[in-house]
């Protein structure tokens, strides 16, 4: 049994056995095992037991990947998440830049406004968007009343509505993520660029943006994964025809009661997100190196 020898202050060696070293890991390890590893394992196993089948089989996976309906659902999930990732990052960047650089007293207010909506929860805000975007909601009614349009614009119950809703919900996370990255850029770099003749826009284009690309990648990754697993917003703002993996899983569990197929969908979602996360983090690492930090 190997042991680690530490010397206490008085010079006496203190031996801590390897086992005792790992004891503090036990409680969290146990929790992870019980509430994460085992259920994940069960879900994996479930996906290989189609309804009515005796032995383990890949039948449900086959079903998933040969049915264009489920594949469209997968594609829609990826598209939706990608769009949200872009929208969140593009909108969060100026806000994060302001928070990182400005010394105006409005900073605290902007920060609160950016983060506070999280307190209201997802469902409340999503229904709020429904009221604003639906065919006889706030925007359409206003435009109809003004005579700008004669038919309501389809702003809800489609990809547009879902992307708007999800962007709103995920934006605070994007802001926080980009804020960290922006704060890592030495303000003297911007000042140097300025004094060398760069306008504010040039400074952002030549200095700030390139140096925050890793932050941009990680913000997009964050927004992507949060979107891909979102349920409430696509369900409420997407309408009946808008099926993404999360809503499809819900249906399989509760309506069709085909838990095996639901597990297949959940696993596909998980693997898809892992692939994206993997690609994203490799990209981020490579960019970091390229920027010679």
């Amino acid at each position, binding site marked *: 049994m190997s042991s680690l020898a530490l010397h206490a202050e008085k010079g006496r060696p203190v031996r801590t056995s390897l086992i005792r070293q790992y004891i503090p890991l036990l409680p969290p390890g146990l929790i992870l095992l019980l509430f994460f590893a085992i259920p994940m394992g069960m879900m994996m196993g479930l996906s290989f037991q189609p309804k009515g089948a005796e032995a383990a089989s890949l039948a449900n996976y086959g079903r998933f990947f040969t049915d264009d309906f489920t594949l469209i659902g997968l594609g829609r999930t990826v598209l939706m998440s990608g769009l949200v990732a872009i929208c969140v990052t593009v909108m969060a960047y100026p806000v994060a830049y302001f928070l990182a650089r400005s010394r105006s007293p409005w900073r605290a207010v902007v920060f609160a406004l950016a983060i506070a909506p999280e307190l209201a929860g997802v469902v409340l805000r999503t229904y709020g968007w429904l009221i604003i975007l639906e065919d006889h909601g706030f925007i359409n009614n206003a435009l109809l009343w003004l005579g700008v349009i004669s038919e309501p614009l389809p702003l809800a119950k489609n990809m547009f509505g879902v992307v708007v809703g999800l962007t709103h919900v995920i934006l605070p996370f994007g802001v926080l993520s980009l804020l960290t990255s922006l704060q890592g850029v030495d303000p003297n770099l911007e000042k140097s*660029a300025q*004094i060398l003749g760069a306008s504010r826009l*040039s400074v952002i284009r030549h200095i700030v943006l390139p*140096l925050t690309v890793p932050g941009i990648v990680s913000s997009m990754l964050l927004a992507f994964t949060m979107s891909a697993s979102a349920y409430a917003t696509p369900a409420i703002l997407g309408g009946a025809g808008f099926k993404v993996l999360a809503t499809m899983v819900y249906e399989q569990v509760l309506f069709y009661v085909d838990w095996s197929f639901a597990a297949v969908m959940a696993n596909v979602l998980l693997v898809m997100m892992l692939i994206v996360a993997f690609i994203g983090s490799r990209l981020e690492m490579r960019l970091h190196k390229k920027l*010679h930090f």
Partner: protein
Amino acid sequence: MTSTDIELVKLSKNYGSTPIVRAIDLTVPQGEFVSILGPSGCGKTTTLNMIAGFTAPTSGQIRVRGVDQNGVPPEKRRVGLVFQNYALFPHMTVKQNVGFGLRMQGKNQADIDAQVKKALHSVHLDGFEDRYPKELSGGQQQRTALARAIAPRPSLLLLDEPLSNLDLKLREAMRIELKDVQRELGITFVYVTHDQEEAMAMSDRIVVMQESVIAQVGTPSELYSTPRSTFVADFIGKSNIFAVTPTRAEAGIHHIEISGTGLELLAASPEPDQTEIAYCSIRPEAARWIEGRSRPDRPLNILPVEINKIVNLGAYLEVWCRHQSDTVIKSLISAARGAHLKPGVNIELTIEPAAIKLLSK
């Protein structure tokens, strides 16, 4: 005739109700190497930031070549700036860094390449074009920052303690290089530092700042030999400073008593009014050790002292001596001469009356 490059007229800056810079006036002729020297918090960096345009003054004017800079953003002021931490763009090569200002000016690539080459040559970094900042040593980074600042040919260069991150030997070498570049290119340098040795070594003139105002402006030798306040006397070089009470004056010689000690000295420096004399300043090298029995003929301040401690400065010894009046006076004695001196030994010091500076504050 040299034209005036920079004029600061009653320049002030407050943060809230705290004054950081209070109504400073300064004129800098073109081509001068002027240092702004002072302890931390005296307002020197803020003054630099105002000249660069990063901070707007609360009141007062900044004129560069006669043009009022009020409202002109940093990118439109044709000044260069070298930061303490160099602030090199880490994602660009040395060549791209140095060429950045020219790029912003819209010059074509061929011109940029030529200018970059020249600038790198000035700082002895030929051949470093394709390196990245993180591959450079501290000194190389410093020189790259300098090259970047001078490449767009500004008429004025601001430097914010650029050498403080370097070790001593490198610092001393860089001082010479900086001075060479400045003289070669004829650019006006405004150099902010807290290191008085550095300022003394490089500057044509030094502006000493203390607590948001200018304490004194002058050439290094002026400041050294005729400080106008105990602050300047103490900040520049070393000094023995005592509070004094003037007893009487006759024929240009002031009799002063080191307050509360009864030790009387004769001082021959000009001072306007007898009643204003409150302090005196004596450089350690002016307190000379008399060896042997030879005494000069003129009446000089002769003090018998006992050595308290000796600080070895290499070529010189700083000898702390105590007079019977309990006054401690530091004397600078060449190490060769004072090789056998030890604490407890009694010696005699003499101070030339002209070397005792009389100050009112």
